Every structure is written in C-alpha cells, then in structure tokens.
C-alpha cells in the first residue's frame, strides 16, 4: 500500500542514522582506518621533517665552517681583497656569504645584508660560538649560520642558505600524507563494507526472512546452508515462524468455521424477520419500533458474517476467478449501484481499457469503498476512473471529515474504521478492499480530497492505457 510513514517515526529513523548494524560496522572500520592512518602520517611527518631539517642545518654548519677556515687562511695572507675573496669561495649553490671584519660588513648578495641577521645570532657568534638560526628574508625562509673567525683574524663569517626548497619538499610531503590518510580511510570504509557484508550475511538473510514474515508470508523459512553460526538461529526462527503460521491458520479456520456455522441460523433469522415484516400492519404499534431495530441489527450482523466469510475465503487461498474485465463499465455498475445514484465519471482516455480481473472481488472493492464513504464520509460524491502511467486510477471521493494523516495507514486494518464510529459495520470492509486490490497487483491508499474530505485511490496496473 502506498501509505506514508507517520512523520514522527520517520524523523526518529533519520536521527538514529546510521541505524543498521551493517552501516555501523562500515563506519567503525572507516573511523579506525582514519585514526590509524592519521597517526602514521603524523609520525612520518615528524620523523621525516625533523630529519630533513637537521640534515640541512648540519650541512650548512659544515659548509660554513669549511668556508670560514678558508677565509681565515686567506685573510691571514691578505686583508685587502675581501670582496674578491668572498666571490672566490667554492660555489655553494644559491647561498649568500657575509663577512664581518674589523667592524665592516661584506656581502655577496644584494638582498641579504647584515640587517637580515638577527641581533641575537650576531651576538652569539661575536661571543665566539658557532650559531645557526632560521630567518625570514623578504618573506622567504632562510637558514643563517655564523662562524667566528679565529682570534688571530677577528670578525665572523656567515652563510645564509635558502630553505624554500626544503619547505616545498615538506609541503609536498604533508599533502601526500593527508591524501594517503584519506585514501586509507576510504579503503577502510570499503573493507568495512565488504567485511560487514561477509560477516553479517546470515543476519541480513535473517532480517529478510523476518521482514517477509512481518509482511504476511508466513511460510518463509530460514535455511542455515551449513553455516554453523546460523544453525541455532535458523532453527529457532523456523520454530517461531511455524508456530505463528499454525496459529494464524488456526485463527483463520476458526473465524471461517464460526461464520459458516452462523449461516444456517442467520438464514432462519433473516427469513423469519421477513415473514414478520410482511405482517407489520397486523402488529401492535408498540412492537414496530423494536422490530425495526431488530431488523437493522440483523442486517448488520449479516454484513459482518458475509465479510468474515469473505476474509476466511481469502485466507483459505480461494483462487481468483479471472476474466477480461471492462474496467470503466465495472466501476460504473458497482459504484452507481452502491451509491444508489450515478456517481461515476470515466475519463475518455480509459473508456475502453480492459484487463484480467476477478469481477466479484473488484465489485466488492468498489462497493466497500462507496459504502465506507456513505458511512464515514457523509456519502460518496464522485467516483473517477482516470488514466495513470501503466495503470488505471480509480478515485472514490467523499466530502466528510477526511482521514487524519496518522490514521491513513491503519484504516485498512481489520476493525479499524475511518471515522470515530467504529460500530457502523464496515470494520472489515477496507481490509477486504486492501486484500482484493493486492491480489490484482494494485495499490490502494487514502489521501486528502482537494476541497475537503477523503479520497480513496485504487491503482490497477494495465498493460496499455
């Protein structure tokens, strides 16, 4: 049945996502993979970056020390050629050299001058220690290494190494690690999904079987298929299903037996009532009112018994009597007769639609829907036969109070009336409608009629419209 779930329940389902065991397992795998890969990435990052930085610093210090020794030797020989001296140092790539000698600064770079060197570094080197520091020059990272020149020469020698390539390497590394962590998490999700499917396959089948039973397929059984984890579960499930099926069959048989037993006394009562009513004129007036009451009740009783027999027939697997049915004609005959006046409008597009159907059951569908409109909807105002994709749409409208959204699902249950007056004798009518429509492969639901009232819709599939 095309009935929408009550909003509250749907919200609850949404809030408790992920609700299935399988998606929980999948998400757990994903989170675990994310945590592990993040940890690994962090460790890798820490180790590799500190290693690279240390290496670069050591290399810088070594190169600067070697150059400083060369400069010391040269200065001892000749103090006047300092600029050419700096230029004559072995090429160290893109590094710059600065020399502080006798209170003067010499540099090989137009951008890196003594101002670029932090005071603390200069101070430490002036104090006679080798020092290094990361500095920023014009927004780019550099490593500055200072080596004091021996006391015989005086002054200090600095080299400034660009670190941007190292930073670039570290950046690439970090991006790689983050991507790797994400990919690992996704792989974790996939593995989780696969593993959960594998591990939960028995439970999924159990769930399917239980749902099938809930839908009414009571002969559903679970086959363990040699899975030792499932055998116990399958056995107890099958026992439960068997017991339930026996119980339902027994209930149906009981209802059927009772209603069959009621037929004979009901025949006697109905005909006796008819004989008495034929002689109503001979009766004293004081008897007429209770007689009318008795007559009405007897007719309701008859309806109830006929409905019970109908349901027990259905439960007993009474086969469909299929023949080619002219849908429009059938609806018109059944609905107009039930309403006692013409109420049917057949759309010209579906005027000639025929399909296989059980005439008696389809008549029952229309009669019960129109009766329901009469009892609960202040009378049927219209029955429409309309085209729908791959189907014929039959609408039964009333102008009554309508059916509240939260009740729309339940009106098709046994003994659930559309309105508040459950004693009006259509307690089984809509449930018979639902069954008969279902065996025709159709759907039935109730919606709000534009302009007020209830609209019961029956969708009967047809091969061509």
């Amino acid at each position, binding site marked *: 049945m095309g009935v929408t779930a009550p909003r509250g329940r749907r919200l609850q389902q949404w809030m408790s996502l992920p609700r299935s065991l399988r998606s929980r397992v999948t998400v757990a795998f994903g989170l675990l993979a994310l945590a592990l890969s993040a940890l690994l990435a962090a460790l890798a990052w820490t180790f590799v970056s500190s290693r690279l930085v240390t290496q670069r610093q050591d290399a810088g210090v070594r190169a600067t020390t070697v150059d400083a020794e060369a400069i010391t030797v040269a200065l001892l020989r000749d103090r006047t050629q300092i600029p050419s001296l700096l230029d004559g140092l072995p090429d160290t790539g893109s590094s710059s050299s600065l020399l502080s000698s006798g209170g003067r600064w010499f540099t090989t770079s137009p951008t890196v001058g003594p101002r670029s060197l932090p005071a603390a570094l200069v101070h430490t080197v002036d104090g006679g220690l080798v020092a290094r520091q990361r500095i920023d020059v014009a927004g780019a990272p550099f490593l500055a290494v200072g080596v004091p020149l021996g006391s015989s020469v005086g002054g200090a020698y600095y080299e400034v190494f660009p670190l941007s390539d190292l930073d670039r390497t570290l950046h690439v590394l970090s991006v790689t690690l983050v991507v790797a962590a994400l990919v690992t998490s996704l792989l974790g999700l996939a593995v989780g999904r696969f593993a959960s499917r594998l591990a939960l396959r028995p439970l999924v089948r159990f769930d399917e079987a239980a749902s099938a039973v809930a839908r009414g397929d009571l002969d559903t059984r679970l086959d363990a298929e040699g899975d030792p984890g499932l055998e116990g579960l399958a056995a107890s499930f099958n026992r439960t299903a068997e017991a339930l099926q026996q119980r339902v069959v027994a209930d149906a048989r009981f209802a059927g037996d009772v209603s069959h037993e009621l037929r*004979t006394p009901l025949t006697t009562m109905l*005909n006796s009532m*008819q004989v008495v009513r034929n002689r109503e004129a001979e009766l004293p007036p004081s008897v007429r009112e209770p007689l009318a009451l008795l007559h009405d009740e007897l007719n309701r009783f008859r309806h109830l018994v006929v409905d019970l027999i109908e349901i027990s027939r259905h439960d007993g697997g009474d086969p469909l009597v299929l023949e080619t049915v002219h849908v429009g004609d059938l609806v018109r005959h059944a609905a107009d007769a039930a309403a006692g006046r013409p109420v049917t409008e057949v759309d010209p597009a579906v005027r000639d639609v025929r399909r296989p159907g059980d005439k008696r059951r389809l008549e029952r569908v229309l009669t019960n829907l129109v009766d329901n409109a009469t009892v609960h909807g202040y009378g049927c105002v219209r029955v429409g036969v309309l085209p729908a994709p791959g189907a014929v749409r039959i609408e039964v409208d009333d102008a009554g109070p309508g059916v509240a959204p939260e009740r729309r699902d339940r009106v098709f249950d046994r003994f659930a009336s559309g309105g508040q007056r459950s004693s009006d004798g259509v307690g089984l009518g809509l449930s018979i409608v639902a069954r008969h429509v279902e065996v025709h492969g159709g759907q039935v639901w109730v919606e709000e009629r534009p302009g007020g009232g209830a609209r019961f819709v029956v969708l009967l599939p047809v091969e061509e419209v």
Partner: protein
Amino acid sequence: MTRSVLLVEDDPRVRRVLRLALEDEGYHVTEAADGEQGVDGVTRDAPDVVLLDLMLPDRDGFSVCRTIRQGSDVPVIIVSARTDSHDVVAGLEAGADDYVTKPLVAKELSARIRALLRRVEPSAHQHHRVVWSGDLRVGVDDGVVSRSGTPVSLSRTEFRLLAELAVMEGSVCSREHLLDRVWGYGYFGDSRIVDVHVRRLRMRVEPDPANPRHVVTARGLGYRLVV
C-alpha cells in the same frame, strides 16, 4: 399462476422458515428432507423449480442433481453453505441452473426463481422466430431445437441461453448480457454460470464440442451464435 417450488433441505428449521417466506412471496412449496425424497418429489410433484441444498444426510447434492437432471428439465438452484469456487463449479457441472449461498433471503431467492422461469422475449427488430445456424434450427417461439432434422433435447435454461444467442442474430453477446437476460443478474453475476452452461449446450448441439461451429467464443467479449 402459482409457481411451485420443491425445497430439498435437511435442516428442519431452515426448511420451515423458507417455506413460510417463499409462500409469502407467492409460491406453493413442497418439502423434502433428504436426497431420495428430493428425487421422488421431482417425479411426484413436478415442481417448477427445485431448491437443492448440497449438504444432505443420505447422498451429496451433486449426485442428487445429476439424477434429477436425467429425468427432468426442471430448473435446479443449488443452495450452498460454502462459497468455494470448487463447490460452485461442481454444482453447475452436475447440471444445476444457478446457485445461491447462505445466508439467503427469500426475496433474493424469489428473484432468482422468477428469472429462471422467464420466457425469452422477442427483440425489437426480430422478425424470424426461427433462427438457423447451419443445420441447427432454433425455434425461439415453439421451443424446438433440431440438428439436421433430429430433435435436440435441452434443459429449460440451456434452451433460453441458446434462444438469447439466436435472437441476437450472430452478434456477440457479452457474459453480462447473458447473465442478465437468462439468469436475471445485473452486471455482476458469476460468469462461470454462463461458461458452464455454454459448455453443456455445446455437448448437445455441436457435432464436435471441442471445435464448436455454432456457439463460438468471442475472446474476451463473450459468445455468439454463427448464423
């Protein structure tokens, strides 16, 4: 004219109340409490209609129906306490003309009886009251049906079915139309009544009932008499 009904029913209370109610409807009612009495009643009282309960103490209703049908063309209405398809078809196959299910009311029963006792009415444009389908002669007025000059014996209802097909002069009759004309149902009679009767009719009038030449099926629409 008072029509007579033979009521074959084992439950004395149902028998009594149906007699009272049917007498109110204007019928003369005779009673039979079991199958043997029922078969005897048909020969002795020559009723216009038999109401036959399927659950009888001595023999089942189907065999009673077959016995009655052997010696009489009286319309038989089966009264069933069950609505199983199997029961209905078996009853019709045994030769019953119609069926009703309990709980039944005399007024509705009376409508069924009246329908079965109705005569075939001429259609407006009907001139020839004798219709020929090849060598099959259908005398709508005189009630005589013959094939190649040999009289064919039909039950009352079989004849009325054939006559309704005949007055349509070869046009297709829908099951609904036949249910209404022959059995007095509206649109929603049980089409199996028509199908079983057509099958029985073919056994009588067709040289080869499996390949009918006179009463042919119009698939999904109904039946027609080839004229």
